[in-house]
């Protein structure tokens, strides 16, 4: 794991090191997203300025690829797998349940900034289907009831931590 400072240096360093070599736009955007968690307006500005690629074209590339985000993400990023194996094991029901429990739709972030819900085509743990990932942790063989329990547990943990921080 790289520290925040390390990542910042990486993005700045990458911008600074840019020598006009073609094909560097996507790696630059990736390092901006690594650093900020999304691609902020300012980063588009900088990248366009340094590479000479028009901002409109940078924006075009960002919106073409599903990896890039223009909005910050929640503390817990849920990636619900909707690959074939998960789909036949009922992933749609799991995704519906998460949407209902959190009150957001796929691609959205809860108002308190705690959860973001995305779907992915395949995580590659097909034998554990249906699967979701919450940040780097994989949770498999889910049912609507068990995924609800999981989310409520995280909510409780967050609430407790918030109260503790407020009290302390």
């Amino acid at each position, binding site marked *: 794991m790289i520290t925040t400072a390390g990542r910042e240096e990486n993005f700045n360093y990458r911008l600074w090191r840019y020598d006009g070599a073609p*094909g560097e736009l996507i790696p630059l955007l*990736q390092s901006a997203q690594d650093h900020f968690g999304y691609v902020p307006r300012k980063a588009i500005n900088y990248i366009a300025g340094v590479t000479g690629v028009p901002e409109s074209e940078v924006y075009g590339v960002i919106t*073409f690829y*599903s990896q*890039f985000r223009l909005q910050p993400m929640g503390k817990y990023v849920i990636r619900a797998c909707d690959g*074939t194996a998960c*789909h*036949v094991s009922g992933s749609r029901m799991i995704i519906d*349940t998460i949407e209902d429990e959190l009150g957001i739709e796929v691609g959205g972030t809860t108002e308190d900034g705690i959860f973001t819900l995305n779907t992915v085509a395949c995580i590659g743990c097909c034998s554990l289907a249906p699967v979701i990932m919450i940040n780097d942790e994989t949770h498999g063989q889910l049912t609507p009831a068990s995924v*609800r329990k999981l989310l409520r547990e995280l909510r409780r943990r967050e609430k407790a931590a918030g109260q503790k921080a407020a009290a302390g």
Partner: protein
Amino acid sequence: MKKVIIGMGTCGMSAGAQQVYDRMQEILSENPGTFALSRTGCIGMCYREPLLEVREGDRRTIYGQVTPETAAGIFDSHVVKGKVFDGNVVYSLDGKGGDGGTEADFLRQQKRIVLRNCGTIDPESIDEYEAAGGYRALEKALRGMTPEKIVEEVKASGLRGRGGAGFPTGLKWSFAASYKADRKYVVCNADEGDPGAFMDRSVLESDPHAVLEGMIICGKAIGSDFGYIYCRAEYPMAIRRLNIAIEAARGKGYLGKDILGTGFNFDIKIKQGAGAFVCGEETALFASIEGQRGMPRIRPPFPAEKGLWQKPTNNNNVETYANVPWIISNGAAAFAAFGTEKSRGTKVFALAGKVVHGGLAEVPMGTTIHDLVFNIGGGIKAGRKFKAVQMGGPSGGCIPVELDNTPVDFESIPATGAIMGSGGMVVLDDTACMVEMARFFLDFTQSESCGKCTFCRIGTLRMLEILARIVGGEGESGDIEKLQELGRQIKEASLCGLGQTAPNPVLSTIRFYRNEYEAHIAEKRCPSSACSALVDFKINPEKCTGCTICAKNCPVNAISGKPKQTHVIDNSVCVKCGKCITSCNFDAVYKS
């Protein structure tokens, strides 16, 4: 000394391999010198992860579904006392050619060429790769073979591209070799985007050097000095291990300037994909490496003439390159001895879905689907009925159980309307609705269409709308014909493989399961009880606790029942929204 090896591919990690590794490390630091701890990639038995192996010379014992507690038990019993720990042994080799364990059948029926080192060596150690015969083929190719001889050898092996299209690899190489240019490129397509396919990921995570070696040999054959690996960003572990492998190969002089003192230069760079399925198409992949939106372009000119940066380029996928060192080392004839007349060698399949043994299996071409599903895959989960396999992902099609004696090769599979694809094989049981499957795949390709060709961009959307109507219970007569007509037009009028194959799942399910479509349209009935809009919702009295939450969530008050008593759904009022299923804390609501 005994060696304890833990399977640490992505599937192992998600099942808890890291905790097992940490526990073993703890034990090792408490008992220094009792064993050596190491890691390996994917053994292929995803359904038994996490896997732990105890190795002593040629004797291997593999334990499955290991927890930190069983790991401690294995240490006490097997490592210390030399007594096999009961209960978890999935596979064992006694060192004299005999094998055993509950899952011996899974491995016994495979022939591992691509997966030769997967699950046996540490992917982060170049020494272990060399000890397993690695980079010997490169030496042979650089020191003892001319570029023409290498191309001839690959041609003679009969190797065909494993990415899906099955184009003869040797022929492809000879095209790229024939063009003169100041620079040529070797590209490895590791943008494995098919949902339900994870062969390439496992090879990259478990044996990255095999892919590098194949690429370097290709470089020599076509006269290129630079290679790109285009890998999905969703495969962080594969990228990390590739980076380690590239560094190590440079350190040992297998990559860089003057490789093995032969004057040949070659280097490799990794490019991370950014999440676009269409980038699996080679011209779109080149555009993405060049930093643009990944959109395909018209061929000709073919990549062999004008590919990446307008230079002659050879593009193959991960599995194809991984075959190359084996062919060079063992000879074309040894490779051609496996498989069928027109499809030589082996193919790796990712078995997933409703099959008991989900995982990776490498079999000779020509093995039947039945053998794959039942003899290696162990049959259908929960004793249900085998209905079909879906092959080739969103570009492929369904092969029904009636055709399960179809051999897997590049001729027989397309004859059924499906495609070989890269090797994803999703097994479906009798709960799968084929109309809904078709809708699912089309939904995927529709959202992944890059938008360049009108027929692909809008045609798939129109097809999707019709399918959504059908599964929603609002199908009309004539819909099937409309789907077929649209499908034909999209196939003909799209530039790249994505559009040309997008209608396949729909067309192949209409071909084999027309009666299901008709039941949805004419009788408003889903024969597999899968489509929410066409089934009844019921509550299982054994699971229902009478908590009232479903009744509170029901938007049309279709659920009645007193607190603490079993609730009942009135299906004449129900609008099939599914709120009761997702809100129930006890999984008591079901569809029938």
